[in-house]
C-alpha cells in the first residue's frame, strides 16, 4: 500500500517449487498476467480518451467509464494466482523468520497454506453463489445502457479457483518435506 510493493519475479521466469519450472499452472497463470496487463493498458487509454472527449466535445463515454470501473476487479483476479506463485503477496515474517526450519515448515508452509485454502475456498464459493444470484435475478448496472453484472463478478470465482490451485501446488512439496523429516526450504 502501501501501497507497498514487493518486487515481483519476472514473468516467464522460475516460479515456486512444486509447480514445475514451466508447468501447466505456471503457463496458465502467465497468461492471466499478460491479459491483466492488456486490461490495464486498455483502461489507461479509455480513461485518457474519455477525458479528452469531455474537454474537446463535452461528451463522455458513460458506459465505457462505468465498465472500466470493473477493471480493478478483473486485473486483481486475473493476476492473483500468477502473483501468488511468484511470491508477490505480502507476508509478515517477523515471527516465522526466526523459527527453526522444521517448525517454520509446519506453521507457515503447511498450517497457513491450509488456512489460505480455507479462505480462498470461501471466496470461490461466495463468488459462485453471488454470480448465480446475479444471473437468476438478471441484475444489471443502473445506467442508460444497462449491462448485466454477472460477467463482472464471474471473474471472482474463476480467479479464486486458480489461486486455490496455486496454493495447493505450493503446499504439495511442503508436505513432501514434512514426510521426509526435513525443514522449510527457506
Amino acid at each position, binding site marked *: 500500500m502501501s501501497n507497498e510493493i514487493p518486487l515481483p519475479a519476472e514473468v516467464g521466469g522460475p516460479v515456486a517449487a512444486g509447480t514445475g519450472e514451466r508447468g501447466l499452472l505456471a503457463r496458465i497463470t502467465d497468461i492471466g498476467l499478460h491479459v491483466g496487463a492488456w486490461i*490495464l493498458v486498455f483502461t489507461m487509454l479509455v*480513461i485518457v480518451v474519455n477525458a479528452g472527449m469531455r474537454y474537446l466535445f463535452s461528451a463522455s463515454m458513460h458506459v465505457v467509464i462505468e465498465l472500466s470501473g470493473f477493471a480493478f476487479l478483473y486485473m486483481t483476479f486475473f493476476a492473483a494466482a500468477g502473483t501468488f506463485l511468484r511470491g508477490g503477496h505480502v507476508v509478515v515474517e517477523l515471527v516465522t523468520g526466526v523459527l527453526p526450519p522444521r517448525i517454520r515448515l509446519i506453521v507457515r508452509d503447511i498450517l497457513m497454506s491450509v488456512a489460505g485454502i480455507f479462505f480462498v475456498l470461501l471466496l470461490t464459493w461466495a463468488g459462485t453463489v453471488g454470480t448465480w444470484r446475479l444471473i437468476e435475478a438478471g441484475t444489471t448496472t443502473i445506467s442508460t445502457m444497462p449491462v448485466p453484472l454477472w460477467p463482472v463478478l464471474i471473474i*471472482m470465482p474463476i480467479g479464486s479457483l486458480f489461486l486455490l490451485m496455486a496454493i495447493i501446488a505450493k503446499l504439495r512439496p511442503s508436505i513432501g518435506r514434512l514426510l521426509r523429516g526435513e525443514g522449510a526450504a527457506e
Partner: protein
Amino acid sequence: MTFGTLGLVFALALFSLLLMGLPVAFALGLTGLIGIMSAGGNDAWITLTSGAALHHMSHFGFLAIPLFILMSTYITESGIGARLIDAATKWMSKLPGYLHSASIAACGGFSALSGSSIATAAAIGGVVLPEIKRRGHSMRLGMGAVAAGGTLGMLIPPSNHFILYGVITETSISQLFVAGIVPGIMLITAFIAFNLIIFSLKPSLAPRAEQAAEITWAQRWVALRQVWTAMVLIVAVVGGIFFGVVTPTEAAGLGALAALLLGMFALRGLNLKQAHQAAIRAVQVTAMLGLIILGGLILGRGMALLNLSNDLVRWISDSGMSPWEVMIVINFILLFLGLMMDAAAITLITVPLLFPVVVALGFDPIWFGVVFCINMELALITPPVGINLFVIKAITGEPMKDVIIGVLPYALILAVGLVLVMVIPGIALWLPGTM
C-alpha cells in the same frame, strides 16, 4: 460479549494469523469472514463478500491505484532515476554532503513521479548508493537518506496511500493529494538541513574536494534539461488535480500514458517489450494490493456487523479522555502497528475503526489523513518490518544494523515532522484550503 472482549478476540485472531505467516490479504479476509459468520448468520457472508468485490472494488477512485502503479513502473523502467540523481548532484555539488542531499532531492522528485515509496528507494538507491560507497562518503547516512527519502513517495502526490484512505473514508482524494505537498516539502527541507548540519560539523563523513571544482554551470543546465520530462509529468499530474482539470483517476491515466510516451520517445529507455513487462509488473502489484483491499473490505464488514466502531466511539467518550489524548493514543497505536505490518494492511484494518472516532472528536479528515500518512512513513523505516530498510539492504548488501543506524536520525526528523503537523494543522490544510 463486551466491546473489550470482542475487540480483543478479533485482534488476537488477526495478529495470530499474520504472525504465523498467512498472506496479509488472506488474514484480513479470513478474520472478517469469521466475524461476519458469527454476527450475521449463514447467508450474510456470501452477500457481503461478493458485494464487497462487485460494488466496492469497482469504485472508480480505486482505479487510480493500478494506473499510478503503471505510471511508476513505466517511469522506473525508463531510467529517469539516474538522470534525477545526476541533476540533483550537479546542482548541490557545493553543499557539504552533496550526494546525501541530492539523494533526498531526487527521492522527492521521483516520489512525485512514481507515488511508490519502494520504487523511489530502489530507483534512487540503486544509482546513488554505489557512488557514495565509491567516493568513500558515509554509507550509513547515505542508506538512511535514501530509505527516509523513499518514504516521501507515500506523502507527495500521487500517493496510493491517499487513494486508499480517500476511498475508504469518502474523503476528497484531490484534497488529500494537495494536503501532502507542504508537509512533503517541509520534510525534504528538514532532511537536507540535517545533512548540511551534520556534514558541516563532521566533514570527514563526506570528503568533497574532488567534486566541486569539476562542475560548471553549463553542465548544471544540461543536467537539468535532461530531466525536463520529469518536470512536465509532475506539473501535468499534480497541476491537473490541483486546478480541478482532471480527477485523480484521470490524472493517473494521463500520467501513465505520458510516462509511456516520454519513456519511449523522450528518454528512449523503453521499447514495446519493456513497456509490456512494466505493465505486467504493475498488474502483479495491483493483484497483491487488490486482494489486500478485498480482504480489508471483508474485515470492515465484519467489524461493522459486530458494531466494533460504534462501540469504540462510545468507549472512548465514556473514558473521559480529551480529544488530543485520544489522538496521541491513536498515533502510538499506529506507530506500534507500523513496527509489525505494512501500511496498506494497517490502513484497511484501522481506518474503518478510527475514522468515526476521529470525526466524532472534531478532527479534520484531511488533516488526519496526512497525520496517518506520516505515521505510515515511519512504519516503512522502522525495524523489524520496515520495507524500505530491506530494499536498501538488498541494493547495498550492507549489514542491516548499519542500515538501521543510518536511518535513525532521519526517522527522528520524520517523527518531529509528525508532531509539527499535529500541532500546526495549517501545514497540511493551508494548500487544500486554497483549492
